[in-house]
């Protein structure tokens, strides 16, 4: 990573951190229903997505705020998913090539593989990247996705963020083996990387994406990370996790590590405080835009079930519309 890209990575990681903290506050204030924080995973998320091209397709789970920030996804539309405004989010998934967020753990790995198979059929040198946690690798769909990707040499990067916990269940209860090693069983390479090291993440993801682009097939990346917070704002992680573990993770904060790296290379303090100011402004803009944003009207629940609503569904829509009156 050159100096500019490193600074850009830091700037986006910081932005993701501040958005993440704000989202937790917004949930506590009743503005969001629930939110799964990702603080601690910024290097894994931001550096990996920055290794891709704009034409590549991102398949996120629901804890991918840093990926969304790295991809330039509209934050208001992203956060509205957590206000219950629209499952999957209200951002433009085609423009950002950032799929609706997947809440069914592990099932979206197959969508990434199918998309990548489709890109290969078209002869396009585009790559899919799919984000998931170590818990998702226990799902059968993950193994089926690895297998299809291997057999069809699909240009896909499997990006597993192993943060050690699937809600309260530790990684050793998910698998007796090491996740990155599974690639070999399916006929493609696996690599384990320090998910707190932005440069290492960027290098591993770049190599995987280039390999896919050359037509050599998938790669499984296991990025070892930590989530500082609970699984979600509805979770109490003090019931299952030692505080010492969180404190250790915070001492190795990926944001702090990258800051030290940049400072050592001569980036002045003023640059960091400018980045902080920029993040503070973005957060306040997000807060304002969320407050101003309307949820889609209730009757829109009917509008995207089929390309055109069958008569019975159109009737149900009009019934709800009538019940709601002018507020529909």
């Amino acid at each position, binding site marked *: 990573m050159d100096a500019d890209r490193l600074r850009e990575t830091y700037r986006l990681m910081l932005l993701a951190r501040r958005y993440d903290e704000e989202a937790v506050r917004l949930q506590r204030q009743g503005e969001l229903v629930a939110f799964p924080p990702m603080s601690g995973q910024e290097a894994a998320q931001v550096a990996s997505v920055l290794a891709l091209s704009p034409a590549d397709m991102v398949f996120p789970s629901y804890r991918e705020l840093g990926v969304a920030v790295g991809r330039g996804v509209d934050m208001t539309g992203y956060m509205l998913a957590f206000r219950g405004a629209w*499952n999957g989010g209200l951002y433009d998934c085609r423009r950002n090539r950032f799929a609706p967020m997947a809440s069914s753990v592990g*099932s979206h790995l197959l*969508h990434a593989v*199918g998309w990548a*198979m489709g*890109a290969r*059929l078209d002869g396009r040198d585009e790559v899919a990247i799919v984000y998931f946690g170590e818990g998702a690798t226990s799902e059968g*769909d993950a193994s089926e996705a690895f297998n299809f990707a291997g057999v069809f040499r699909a240009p896909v990067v499997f990006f597993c963020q192993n943060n050690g916990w699937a809600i309260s269940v530790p990684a050793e209860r998910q698998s007796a083996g090491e996740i990155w090693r599974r690639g070999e069983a399916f006929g493609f390479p696996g690599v384990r990387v320090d998910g707190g090291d932005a440069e290492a993440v960027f290098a591993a993801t770049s190599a995987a994406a280039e390999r896919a682009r050359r037509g050599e097939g998938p790669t499984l990346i296991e990025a070892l990370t930590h989530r500082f917070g609970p699984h979600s704002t509805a979770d109490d992680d003090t019931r299952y996790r030692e505080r010492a573990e969180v404190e250790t993770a915070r001492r190795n904060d990926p944001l702090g590590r990258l800051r030290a790296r940049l400072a050592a290379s001569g980036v002045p303090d003023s640059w960091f405080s400018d980045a902080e100011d920029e993040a503070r402004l973005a957060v306040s803009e997000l807060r304002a835009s969320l407050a101003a944003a309307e949820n889609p009207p209730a009757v829109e629940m009917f509008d995207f079930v*089929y390309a055109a609503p069958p008569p*019975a569904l159109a009737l149900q829509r009009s019934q709800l519309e009538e019940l709601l009156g002018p507020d529909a």
Partner: protein
Amino acid sequence: MPELSMVQALNAALRHCLAAHDRTLVFGQDVGRLGGVFRVTDGLQHEFGERRVFDTPLAESGIVGVAVGLAMAGWRPVPEIQFDGFSFPALDQMLTNLAKYRGRSRGAYDMPVTLRLPSYGGIGGPEHHSESPESIYAHTAGLKVVTPSCAQEAFNLLVAAIRDPDPVIFMEPKSRYWAKEEVALEPAGLPIGRACVVRAGSDATLVAWGPMVHRCLQVASAAEEDGVSLGVLDLRCLVPLDEATLLTSVAETGRAVVVHEAPRTAGFAAEVSARLMEGAFGSLKAPVQRVTGWDVPYPSGAVEQQYIPSVDRILLAVQRVLDY
């Protein structure tokens, strides 16, 4: 017009769609060199190449999951799940993703996936090879459920399903696969969602779909010998349901018997019966009767004819609506 079996008519429909639209893909287990265990895809890989007609690993969830991704990439997938009972390993992808992706993406992505599913019993198959899961799919908003009863309908409906922008669960009646009739191989151009009166009658209406349409036609012929005039309505599509034709047909006779192979409880006949109550109550001269499979797991092949609605069981139900 050529005389074709339903298998041949389905094969012709796939060939037509692969030729007409170069984004159409056919894939699944054994659909390539073998041509499918029922030969529905016979010769297609040879004609259209391994790029567009290909075998997959033996993994149903994987087949449906990659179909979702391929649809997102702008392809028109026509996956095959080899047998009805093996759609259950894919149920999560079907219900959680295939049915919901248009909505989740707020219309950004069409899901023009036609999932072909050899279905129903009557061929003496081993366990899991004779299921009738149509009500599961009909109960899932976002899916369309289409099921032909004869070769001509199979051709027309499969072409229509593949052209449709929404996911279609296309349930093919295995027990009718080898029945031949003259088939016009010109797409009818009708959208899916239209029922068909296959036999007019004045005393009562038999409502059926898939394999039970033929059974009901047998019943109507038998009843005719006794001077009873039975109409037969082939729903063809459970979702969207052609409620107008259903209500009109039953209102004409005032008596309805709904027939399916699936178990009785929460079967689709319950939905048909409820629609008739809501929409044709004033015309009904007798309570709607259901003739269905028993509420048991599909039995072993040796006794399946005691499970599937027989001509006699349907005639008994006809007697009940006539005697009421």
